[in-house]
């Protein structure tokens, strides 16, 4: 399988299930994505013990859009270019909204409140990123 485009932000299990990797503060239980290390950003918490945490794989669409024109570098746009779809997905348990590319769905297939599930897909120049896909 292709290498991830960024280390430590998501993981693929042997059975193919993709999980976002965040961190959780041992002191106040706040969850962070991308993974926050070293210190907790809750102003009422002095916690410095942040441990890796897998985030929920399913969430609901907070909002969505697409990029009708090829985004500029450092994005590697496919040629010929087809619009990249983006969705911001709300994970109920973590109380967090996470942005990601959407795999195999266009804006016409999406609506706010719809359930999506995490998967992964390749950037045009090869490496993998997390993507939201059909639940």
């Amino acid at each position, binding site marked *: 399988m292709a290498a991830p*485009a*960024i280390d430590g932000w998501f993981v693929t299990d042997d059975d193919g299930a993709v999980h976002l990797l965040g961190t959780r*503060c041992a002191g*106040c*239980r*706040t*969850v*962070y*994505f*991308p993974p926050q290390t070293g210190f907790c*950003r*809750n*102003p*009422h*918490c002095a916690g410095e013990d942040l441990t890796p945490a897998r985030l929920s794989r399913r969430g609901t669409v*907070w*909002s*969505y*859009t*697409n*990029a*009708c*024109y*090829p*985004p*500029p*570098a*450092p*994005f590697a*746009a496919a040629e010929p270019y087809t619009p*990249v779809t*983006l969705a*911001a997905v709300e994970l109920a*348990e*973590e*109380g*967090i*909204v*996470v*942005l*990601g*590319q959407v795999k195999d769905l266009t*804006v016409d297939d999406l*609506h*706010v*409140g719809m359930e999506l599930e995490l998967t992964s897909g390749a*950037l045009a120049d090869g490496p993998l*990123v997390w993507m939201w896909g059909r639940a």
Partner: protein
Amino acid sequence: MDVVIAGTGMHPWGKWGRSFVEYGVAAARAALRDAGLDWTEVQYVVGADTIRNGYPGFIAGATFAQALGWTGARIASCYAACASGAQAIDIARTRILAGLCDVALVVGADSTPKGFFTPVGGDRPDDPDWLRFRLLGATNPAYFALYARRRMALYGDTPEDFAAVKVKNAQAGSLNENARYRKTVTAEEVLASPMVADPLRLMDICATSDGGAALVLASEGYARRRGLSTAVRIAAVSTVTPSFPNTVLELPCFATDSTAAVPPPERTFRASIAHAAYEEAGLGPQDLSFAEVYDLSTALELDWAEDVGLAPPGEAGKLLRAGDTALGGRIPVNPSGGLASFGEAIPAQAIAQVCELTRQLRGTAGSRQVVNARAALAANQGLFGHGSAIIAVT
């Protein structure tokens, strides 16, 4: 004691292809002329920085001071993304209020490349502003589009509503000699322009522009002694940060803060920016004659109208459709024409908003004049959590 706005100056917005220093100097000289003050009398200079014009842009205060001619004046340079200009105003005002100087010049100017704003160059995988392009291709308009789609889903706003914002702002901008876009547009033209980030079309999204703006700020006492205009006073400058957890997906972030441990704050970040300004001024939204808000997109103007308290959440569209926010309406929003007519010149834009506040409050806005303008608010937000709102009063 109050700080008064003794002079305003602008270099017209456009795509002129010249150095930002030229625009800044032109705006500074115009502001000094407007104030009736000589450059050599300025005691303090603050430059709002630009990050796309090399080293001179990072230390804009010194760059402008050198260009105007070294006088030994004290200086500061500051960067706070879109809030840079407001931050520069805050620094100058605070120094005057502290009694450390009587009169200050605030300058911001930018020269911009064509097309989307792209991250600063190089391979920088630890910078979220670089990574969001690399991993997601998430441009600035993508974030504006997420907010726009959310309004449509939550409040039933339509692309026709967004187009109506552009039509309104283009109408106002056609009357502003400093605006880049001076043509009125129709809703049909907006709705026929190419889709950029669904549901936002090219004409829903503000361009990037060259431009320059400057203000002469003075203590009220100094202004009186020197016979400068004291007609317009700064009643508040809000530079608040968000409160944790910030539950709005902010540009350039990958995610919101989590509400797993701490419940969301009473106000969203944008709402808190205006709230702090109202508290400081001892005024409320009902006291405003008009507002200038940061319409990076047409839909975002509707968000801002609610965030600054002109309408309850979800009802800015109603205000728009009633004509209340147009020139001549009950509470005009962006009588300057807004970013829709200017395009964004980052470090100059918040200063330009205050130029409009001043002209309107002086009653010298010509065909754009808001009748009997007494108090106004300008609001914007800089990347990574730099709030900015300024209230000026007569």
